């Protein structure tokens, strides 16, 4: 990896800004967070991703000081912060509902936290002006929250939480209330602001695309546990469990039994009467081990005839075509009844599409195209 790439998590010397150490959080008999350990580094844009109820919001609320861990400790810059109330932490939060004070103007909302610190008037005015400029809200300073649009409210909430220059900014589904187009624009704006201010951001989201776009690292969570913590490309390309592979993006999962077949290569017997599949894996499998091959639809090639050089090729019938404009996803049914998805870019006009419903086609992929998973 290149030396200037931002990757403090690969440096064993780096001190994390936040450290979760065997943290467990229970609400009554329900375990929201289950013995979880995690390091987050300074200047990171870290995403907690998972379905609702996976514990990601609880993690964030523990960082904000609204909940305390039942067991374990949470450190911020090396100091245990459990028991420290929210108003005594160098952590600010941007709430999902934005939680703007409806009785205060945009200006006063942003100044709210600074006033609590008894900042001198001149400094305070400068800081608020700076925040208004950063979020392009200068024109709306005098308006009340109900007099501005949803996107502007989102920026006020961001400006207000950044005004105190926190060590750590928590963002709880910050873009959830915006429509898709605005959300995409705002994602880049968030990244830009994060870079400009150099603040560590922790974002909670259930939108995997959002997490992939903005984050330097993504933690996929399920039922209070971390399933995988890695950069977006690693999460996508090399998921380490079927759960992660399935949660992030679209995927075909082929279940079978592995047999070692040369250096890091395995033969997978997966269906009666079908040729075995070949795939590489760094993770060792013994003969007869149950395994799952996860392969992304865009890594599956669709063609009318069997490609000569293809190692893995299966024949099937086009069952369905999902036309998304730029790409099309073909659902191909194999004789065994398994449906495999293949994606192609629509480089030609739709009227000249090569395949249509009920066509007999070949699907092929390379030995390294998929990921072989044990669970």
């Amino acid at each position, binding site marked *: 990896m290149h030396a200037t790439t931002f990757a403090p998590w690969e440096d064993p010397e780096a001190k994390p800004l936040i450290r979760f150490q065997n943290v467990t959080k229970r609400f009554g008999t329900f375990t929201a967070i289950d013995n979880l350990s995690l390091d987050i580094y300074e200047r990171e844009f870290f995403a907690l991703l998972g379905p609702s109820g996976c514990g990601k919001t609880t993690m964030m609320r523990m960082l904000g000081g609204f909940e305390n861990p039942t067991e374990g400790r949470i450190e911020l810059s090396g100091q245990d912060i459990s028991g420290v109330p929210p108003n005594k932490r160098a952590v600010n*939060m941007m709430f999902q509902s934005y939680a703007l004070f409806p009785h205060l103007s945009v200006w006063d909302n942003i100044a709210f936290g600074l006033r*609590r610190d008894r900042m001198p008037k001149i400094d305070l005015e400068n800081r608020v002006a700076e925040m208004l400029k950063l979020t392009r809200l200068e024109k709306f300073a005098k308006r009340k929250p109900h007099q501005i649009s949803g996107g502007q409210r989102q920026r006020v909430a961001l400006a207000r939480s950044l005004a105190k220059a926190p060590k750590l900014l928590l963002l709880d589904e910050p873009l959830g209330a915006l429509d898709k187009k605005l959300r995409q624009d705002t994602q880049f704006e968030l990244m830009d602001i994060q870079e400009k201010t150099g603040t560590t951001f922790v974002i909670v989201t259930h939108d995997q695309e959002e997490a992939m776009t903005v984050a330097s690292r993504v933690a996929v969570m399920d039922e209070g546990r971390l399933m995988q913590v890695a950069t977006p490309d690693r999460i996508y390309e090399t998921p380490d469990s079927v759960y992660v592979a399935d949660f992030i993006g679209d995927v075909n999962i082929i279940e079978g039994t592995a047999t070692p077949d040369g250096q890091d290569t395995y033969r997978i017997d997966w269906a009666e009467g079908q040729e075995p599949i070949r795939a590489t894996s760094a993770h060792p499998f013994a003969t007869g081990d149950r395994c799952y091959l996860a392969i992304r639809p865009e890594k599956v090639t669709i063609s009318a005839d069997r490609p000569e050089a293809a190692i893995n090729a299966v024949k099937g019938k086009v069952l369905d075509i999902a036309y998304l404009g730029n790409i099309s996803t073909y659902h191909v049914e194999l004789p065994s009844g398994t449906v495999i998805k293949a994606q192609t870019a629509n480089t030609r006009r739709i009227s000249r599409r090569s395949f249509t419903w009920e066509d007999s086609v070949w699907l092929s992929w390379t030995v390294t195209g998929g990921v072989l998973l044990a669970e």
Partner: protein
Amino acid sequence: MRRFLLIAIPYAWLLALFLVPFVIVLKISLSDTALAIPPYTPTLDFAGGWAGLKSFFADLDLENFVWLTQDDLYWKAYLSSLTIALISTVLTLMVGYPIAYGMARAPEEWRATLMMLIILPFWTSFLIRVYSWIGILSQEGFLNQFLLWTGLISEPLIILNTKIAVYIGIVYTYLPFMILPIYAALDRLDESLIEAAEDLGCSRLSAFWLVTVPLSKNGIVAGCFLVFIPALGEFVIPSLLGGSGTLMIGKVLWEEFFSNRDWPVASAVAIVLLLILVVPIMLFQRNQQKQAEAEQ
């Protein structure tokens, strides 16, 4: 035509139930007292024709209003009523706000029950509830018996027939009118606003002052008016609990009307009371309107 009917109904209602009685009271307040049935002159008699009508209007004068300024009983009663209404409003707010706050913060499944407990006393007659306070507050009452039994006091406290009893009565009676609008305002308050305030450096207490109180302001204002307006003209509570020492305009009015049988002066007292009440009622209306606008 349908629109006309739609507008006509509320206007007819106001005319019959507000304006007509008001004009009658106003007319009596401008008359002179007399030993007759009804006990005032002149009376409107259409048989007299145009001349009769003219002499009827000639007989009306502002004498009774002038009288109100001459006897200091009246302005003292107005002033005392204003003070009592004001103090009881503040007391009701002080008692009602924490109750409303507690209700709004209570677990969801408790709220209906708590609301029921607030409304329940209304199902008993108001008069009976005020009477029962006599049983509690009198020198041999439950409160004194209890305090004597615990040994906190050795002499029974004199509460009944003092202003304190009036305050207790008013606070008790009008408490729900204070609690309900404040509860409604607090119930709408988003919990995350308090968390946001704490996150930005507020302690629990300053978050309460800077966020909770300003955002329940409309409820507080509505509650205060709902207590202040009826408390100002209150008659039953001061006459049952306040004894002869408590001067309130409602009581004065009643005595003018039934003891002195001086209907014209009693009517003048009522007209002035109404004029005093118009100001807070209008302010109350404006507050309600502002609140409705803010919700849009």
